[in-house]
């Protein structure tokens, strides 16, 4: 079974890309789909209805969605195995701009919209830096120069990333994404799958429910408006 992990900011076209993958690969391969979101998601119902494939969703709630995906990934691989899936697609909510959900033994795809402003690639750097491919959607709405400038911005974050430009609704330009999926090796040892890169350490007393404002009232990793970047205050 192949594992594909798709991340990207809200409404950037992740599900549209997933649909194109299913349209093109669904006839020859069994696909299972898992959506990870914070509070609400509808994609599982939608994709089950449209394509008749096994789907699931999980809400991360208080947990960072990327952390939630790591927590459930092993269960998800087991579930997809029971469904006899050849490909498991995981769509992450992509709300945590510090973390990145890609694991080893997977194809990591970051989706980003070409009309999202020129600085988005810099703002979502971790999601791009650790991905194998970047799929740029809404390419139908921008001219050649804008495409090239956007591409340059992505390359600033990850020089080696493979970039694909698409109108994800029509499915243009998917040729090379489909090829990358074909070339992606199967999971060889589910017990050895790890998160790529180290997640940021970030436990403070706000994480555990203390709501006072001001760093003076908190412990753990703290922040001041001016001065040192990371401070640690023991309790």
């Amino acid at each position, binding site marked *: 079974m192949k594992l594909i992990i798709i991340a990207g900011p809200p409404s950037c076209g992740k599900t549209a890309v997933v649909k194109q993958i299913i349209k093109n690969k669904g006839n020859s391969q069994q696909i299972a789909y898992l959506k990870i979101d914070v509070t609400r998601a509808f994609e599982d119902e939608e994709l089950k209805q449209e394509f008749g494939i096994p789907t699931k969703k999980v809400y991360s709630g208080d947990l960072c969605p990327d952390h939630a995906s790591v927590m459930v990934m092993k269960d998800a691989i087991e579930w997809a195995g029971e469904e006899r899936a050849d490909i498991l697609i995981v769509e992450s909510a992509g709300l945590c701009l510090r973390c990145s959900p890609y694991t080893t033994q997977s194809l990591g795809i970051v989706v980003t919209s070409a*009309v*999202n*402003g*020129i*600085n988005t690639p810099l703002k979502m750097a971790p999601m791009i830096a650790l991905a194998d491919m970047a799929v740029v959607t809404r390419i*139908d*709405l*921008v*001219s*050649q*120069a*804008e*495409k*090239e*400038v*956007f*591409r*340059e911005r992505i390359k600033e974050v990850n020089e080696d990333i493979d*970039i694909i430009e698409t*109108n994800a609704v*029509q*499915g*243009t*330009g998917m*040729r*090379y994404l489909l090829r990358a999926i074909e070339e992606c090796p199967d999971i060889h040892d589910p017990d050895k799958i790890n998160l790529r890169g180290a997640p940021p350490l970030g436990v403070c007393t706000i994480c555990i429910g203390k709501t006072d404002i001001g760093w003076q009232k908190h412990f753990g990793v703290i922040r001041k408006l001016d001065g040192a970047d990371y401070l640690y205050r023991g309790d």
Partner: protein
Amino acid sequence: MNSEMIEEITVLSGKNRSGEPENFDEIIIRPGDTLSIVGPTGSGKSAFITDIEIFARNDTATGRTILVNGEHPPEDYIRDPAKKPVALITQNTKCLADLKVHEFLEMHIKSRRIAETELTGKTIDLANEFTGEKIHPDVKMTALSGGQTRSLMVADAITISDTPLILLDEVENAGIFKDRVIETLKEYNKALIFVTHDPMVSLMSDRRIVMKNGGVSGVLEPNGREDEALLKVIELDRIMCRMREQIRAGEMICGQVFT
């Protein structure tokens, strides 16, 4: 830079929305050619130029295939923007890049690894020939009007992207000097394809592709038979442009207008 290498681009026919074959075998486009694509909204005009832009290989809704110099183009042409021989100027007239005009152009120049230092100024100057509203290098891209954005994107496609084939999707709606754009593009020996509803743009091109129900229903080659109509429409366009500028300048338009 690619211009020398591209002798022709060939469109092989596909199917219309009802699955019937299109009414042509192949359309060959060479440097200096101008084609217009006409037809009602939803007839497949944008789909036609998108097929060319992405070098369709019987893998789009239309089933068309695009060849370069008679062969499937190398992957570089499609994936490396610096080698891609086609630039598409979309129907969308807003640029969302949060950059100043000169920053945007400089970034584009940098992405293409071009060393020429005066290219930014040259591009803005050229764009200003296409629009009546002067573009300033320090203004934000997001603040440009539709006409200014279009003008800048066309100028950019000529000077920076410098592709042998330029595709323009409904350029006329944006208030730019169409005849100046066409003349300039011809001067640079670019091949041009316009999606258009505009009589002047249609009549100025050598061939006219007529779209219907997602497919090409005919290719017209007037070969001079429309010259009379063209002269008339150019005259009318001059009058319209002059009036537009006068109205913009707050003038009254009285007396003889057909001069």
